[in-house]
């Protein structure tokens, strides 16, 4: 770990999401459904100087690992991110996020008339395009820079099931 990364305190067990696109840290928390009410211990570094990408954000979450669908959405807003699983202050696993073909749950369709916004037993499903995502039900396209706006922080995209 470099000195620069030490600006954000070390954690004992949990996940460090590093090399997040600068400015996206709060959206990463939104994807993880973290708003402070759950009592997690969270540290955020924003616009941290980085040799690799100029500036980056870093998010450290104590006692929490990520689900696949969370990683999938993460890959849209922070394609360069690395996910480090920490146990007892050591990085035991380091993964790059990978873009998937489909994102299920988590995103909410912006089309209010889309059937996934009605009270139906269905998870949202978005096909990943080069430059955004597209609702598998109504075909509405969300451009990449707008994706973060459509994250359902409460995870309702999941709980409908």
């Amino acid at each position: 770990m470099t000195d620069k990364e030490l600006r954000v305190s070390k954690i004992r067990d949990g996940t460090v999401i590093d090399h997040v696109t600068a400015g996206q840290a709060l959206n990463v928390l939104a994807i993880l459904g973290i708003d402070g009410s759950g009592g997690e211990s969270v540290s955020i570094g924003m616009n941290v100087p980085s040799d690799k990408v100029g500036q980056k954000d870093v998010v450290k979450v104590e006692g929490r690992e990520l689900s696949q669908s969370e990683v999938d959405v993460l890959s849209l807003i922070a394609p360069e991110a690395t996910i480090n699983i920490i146990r007892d202050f050591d990085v035991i696993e380091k993964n790059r996020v990978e873009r998937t073909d489909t994102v299920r749950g988590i995103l909410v369709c912006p089309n209010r008339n889309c059937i996934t916004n009605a009270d139906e037993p269905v998870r949202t499903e978005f096909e990943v395009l080069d430059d955004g995502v597209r609702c598998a039900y109504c075909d509405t396209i969300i451009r990449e820079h707008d994706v973060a706006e459509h994250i359902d922080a409460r995870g309702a995209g999941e709980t409908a099931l």
Partner: protein
Amino acid sequence: MLQDHLISAAHLSRDDIEAVLDHAAAVDADPDLVRDRHAGRVLALCFFEPSTRTKMSFESAMKRLGGETIDMGSVESSSVKKGESLADTVRVIEGYADAMVLRHPSEGSAKLASEFVDVPLVNAGDGAGQHPSQTLLDLYTIRENAGLDDITIGIMGDLKYGRTVHSLAQALTNFDVRQHFISPESLRLPRNVRYDLHEAGAQVREHTDLDEVLPELDVLYVTRIQRERFPEEREYLEVAGEYRIDNEVLSDASDDLTVMHPLPRVDEIAPEVDETKRAKYFEQAHNGVPVRMALLDILLGGNE
């Protein structure tokens, strides 16, 4: 797809389309071919919003195949009004029928419904989304009158909310067709449809003025511009007149131009056009029955 459901024109391949159109042509030429082929089978008509014509056309098609139809009556009197989910409704109705036709006001409803049933399901319009069986009869009419390759089509009117337009534009990408879209700026094709056309490498241009392209067209497909799409009456009046055709407007068109419209029309096409050989919209509506007979026959496994 055609052994399964018909949800979106985006899923239709050229082979699928030709299979339906060829079969429709055979049925059209000789209705005895399929008479009583589906005796004893039942088609459920699930219309969550009213559409007398589409519903009657499916009803007529199923009856001419020897089958029966059932429907859920008006939405007001059904369990839907009591808050039952679409998923539950179609799972119940599946038990009553061998196939289903669904019309619903929400986009994506047909895809959702198809995930909960095993019987073939036909999307007969989901909100502003898709109306693929209309597309098949549109393609049938185009093929009969102009052919489906090396033609130029103009599609005019409300391209934003017009689901028949969305299905048709996508289906046409399977053929060698130059597509011109003519609409007011505010009613342009939605982004997702333009995306698909682009991905398919379709030859597409957009216009606000019909005059720019009219002489090149083999087919002009007109749709209705609805008053309620405009926040102000004044804005509607400004555009409405520009997208109305009569014989004078058509004087620059090719003699062989085929004029189509999914109907009902209000005043987009002057009645005087009806008398000309260009007018094919009633023929187009009549084609709904043989095309839907062919479609149901294929989905019900009748022509195997």
